[in-house]
């Protein structure tokens, strides 16, 4: 066994979106009890911060794990464009059946970003507010 230095590149993005936490598998009363204010039928919104971390060899010619221009374009196309200023449960297909909690949002964003061709996705961490954050690092 030997030790090797592992380097990750971290980048933060922001989008604003609304959501409503409501499970079709629960009664209205149960939804109201479990989700409280988040069950408001009209929804509510957050300024989300998405932090992604990628690993891979640092290219000797560029000093980079991934070129930020490529990474930003990929994340914008896959996540920011489809989610920013949207209603997650109304406008994102994945959340028609799945409750758009930030736990589930982490999983959805991870699935959308894991095919980035230039580096390996390590984790997605989302700050729903400055007090709540969630992280998903793929199936363990």
């Amino acid at each position, binding site marked *: *066994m*030997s*030790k*090797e*230095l*592992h*380097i*990750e*590149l*971290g*980048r*933060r*993005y922001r989008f604003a979106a609304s959501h409503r936490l409501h499970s079709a598998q629960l009664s209205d009363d149960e939804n109201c009890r479990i989700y409280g204010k988040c069950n408001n039928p009209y929804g509510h919104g957050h300024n989300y911060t998405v932090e992604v*971390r990628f690993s891979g060899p*640092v290219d000797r*010619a*560029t*000093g*980079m*794990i991934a*070129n*930020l*221009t490529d990474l930003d374009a990929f994340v914008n196309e896959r996540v920011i464009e489809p989610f920013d200023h949207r209603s997650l449960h109304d406008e994102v297909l994945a959340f028609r059946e799945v409750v758009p909690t930030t736990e589930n949002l982490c999983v959805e964003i991870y699935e959308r970003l894991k095919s980035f061709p230039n580096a390996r996705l390590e984790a997605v961490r989302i700050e729903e507010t400055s007090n709540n954050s969630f992280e998903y690092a793929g199936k363990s």
Partner: protein
Amino acid sequence: MVYLTRKVEFAASHRYHNPALSAEENRRVFGKCNNPHGHGHNYTLEVTIAGEPDPITGMVLDLKELKDILEREIMQRMDHRFLNYEVAELKAQIPTCENVARVIWNLLEAKIPQGRLHRVRLYESADLFADCYSKTVGGAS
């Protein structure tokens, strides 16, 4: 195991330029970061030490000691410097966040007197950072 993190900030300039590439390729790959006059950032460095608290002092590592190590090894070397020209360890490398974080790891790893260096996180801006960890490879996992 307890993890202790100390944060320091330094300001430095840098330029991304690889002499093995043409001027045009440099501009294409590095964009604005290829400006010949360089540009600068306020870097934030978070250094995390892992260890068991000492039964007598209750400390993983005396923060004063860590502060002195960071001052000596990092701040004096990098604060208000042009990283390409003034930091010997970066001379043959592009001073990207990844490479600067790795240089910082290598400068600190052997200098930690108690506990062990667990993570170096270097923020180049609030939205861009690099993490370094030591990972065990090979053998049973």
